[in-house]
């Protein structure tokens, strides 16, 4: 199992700008948590960076894990590809404690990656990144003709939708009939 160390460098406390007369409040050491995706690669992320994710923030807010406990209990996100989770972790680290820029130029341009990223970000509830991503998806069809939009987003025609619906109904009917037959068999 490998681990990444993004986010640790920014953990150093800033120097106070003025000399306080009373003793400075003791610095609270930054806590870290561990997450992994489908590929089981564990990422070490600071609590500050994870604040971007409403889902993870909610999960960790009352845990009070020690470093060892956190390490021993990484949060599993089996529904997220490793490379996608890496992108999310990178974004959270880059934007830790910073105002988010109006545009994010680092988002992937590759269609499949972007779609997977949107789903992951939506699941992790990272509101600002989701906004960027949705804008990026919208930009994929900017200035395109209807047929180009259909192709890019794979939008079925009415006829295709109707055929798919018919097929789904047929399948549901078959399944229901199968269940009835099975129940009748059980009753015998």
């Amino acid at each position, binding site marked *: 199992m490998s681990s990444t160390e993004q986010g640790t460098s920014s953990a150093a406390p800033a120097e106070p700008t003025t000399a306080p007369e009373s003793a400075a409040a003791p610095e609270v050491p930054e806590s870290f948590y561990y997450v992994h995706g489908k590929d089981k690669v564990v990422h070490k992320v600071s609590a500050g960076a994870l604040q971007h994710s409403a889902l993870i923030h909610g999960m960790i807010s009352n845990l009070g894990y020690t470093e060892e406990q956190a390490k021993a209990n990484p949060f599993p996100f089996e529904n997220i590809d490793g490379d996608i989770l890496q992108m999310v972790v990178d974004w959270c680290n880059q934007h830790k404690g910073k105002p988010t820029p109006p545009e994010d130029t680092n988002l992937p341009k590759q269609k499949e990656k972007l779609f997977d990223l949107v789903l992951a970000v939506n699941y992790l509830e990272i509101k600002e990144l989701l906004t960027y991503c*949705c804008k990026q998806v919208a930009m994929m069809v900017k200035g395109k003709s209807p047929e180009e939009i259909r192709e890019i987003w794979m939008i079925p025609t009415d006829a295709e939708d109707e055929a798919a619906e018919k097929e789904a109904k047929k399948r549901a009917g078959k399944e229901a009939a199968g269940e009835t037959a099975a129940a009748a068999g059980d009753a015998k």
Partner: protein
Amino acid sequence: MEEPPKPPKFGLLKFPFPLREQVIRNMEFMDVFHFSTLSKRSKNMVRSAKYQTYRINFDFDDDDSSMDHVEVDFNEGREDFKISLSDSEDPSKRNPYRLDGLELANLIDEPSDDYRKKMSSHILFIHHSKWTSVRFGRNFEHVNDLYLWDVTKQFDSVILSGDDKLHITPKYLQSILNSTKAKKYTLDFKIEDINFEYQEPLDCEQLIVVGTIQWLDTDNFLKRNPNLKLLQGKHLPGEKINDLLKQWINGEAVDLKELVLLKGRGYPADVIFDGILTMETKLTEDQVKRISLCWNKDGKTVDIQRKIDGKLATVHINQSGCFVSMCNEKRLYKLQH
């Protein structure tokens, strides 16, 4: 047996509904329009996404029907869109500087006898607009046959006004007012029959008449228009204003906020307040000034009281006309803050 086409392996439709809608809300206007023409499902998706527009205005030009258009405005510094809805399908008689509504309507896969109907209906269906309006800048010979009535008769605002003074017949005015339902009517015209009186309910909140309002029958006017909040016009006879004040005192149109009735040389106090109990105003001079933009130190300011609940209205008459402000708490609170 032929297999039905397989659903897409990957695409926007794989997204959960809220995500699809967020993507749509981030799209440009024309992209949204194109997307909405792809299928019934995509059209409904745009509607569900509540793609916000500030205003949709149907504009019937002053004299050139080739300039007719629908305008979609965004109030966020974004570009507004004007789509030509010329009554001619001849390209030489269509405005080349606007988006071509005929071309766009051809993308909509629905039957229609008139492309303007199809286009207007589609725009209204897919967009959530804060304000929908229509402006009539010219006379129509057969206004009752207007294509728009088949699409909608309900607007936030109806404007009857052209660059030059619009000369209309009573029949035309009646047709417009009876065909539409709106919160606000802004009317600027000259009527041919000076004896004509409009007696039907308008059911609006604001009636702003730029010119003379003498064509309005004021008998039971507030009873006929219980939701009225603002009435503005010129040259209403003093006796009719007196009657309107009495209607308000007797409890009609409880939400009425303002009457702005203009007349050169003003109105005589004895006519306006005939048979009405007036009181010294409870407002300070400064408050009256702020309530009425037309305040004049030589004018007369009094309060009148509504019988049903004791609410006060301040009436100011001067050389410019008669100005009535219903002094509800909200208005006074705004004045004080």
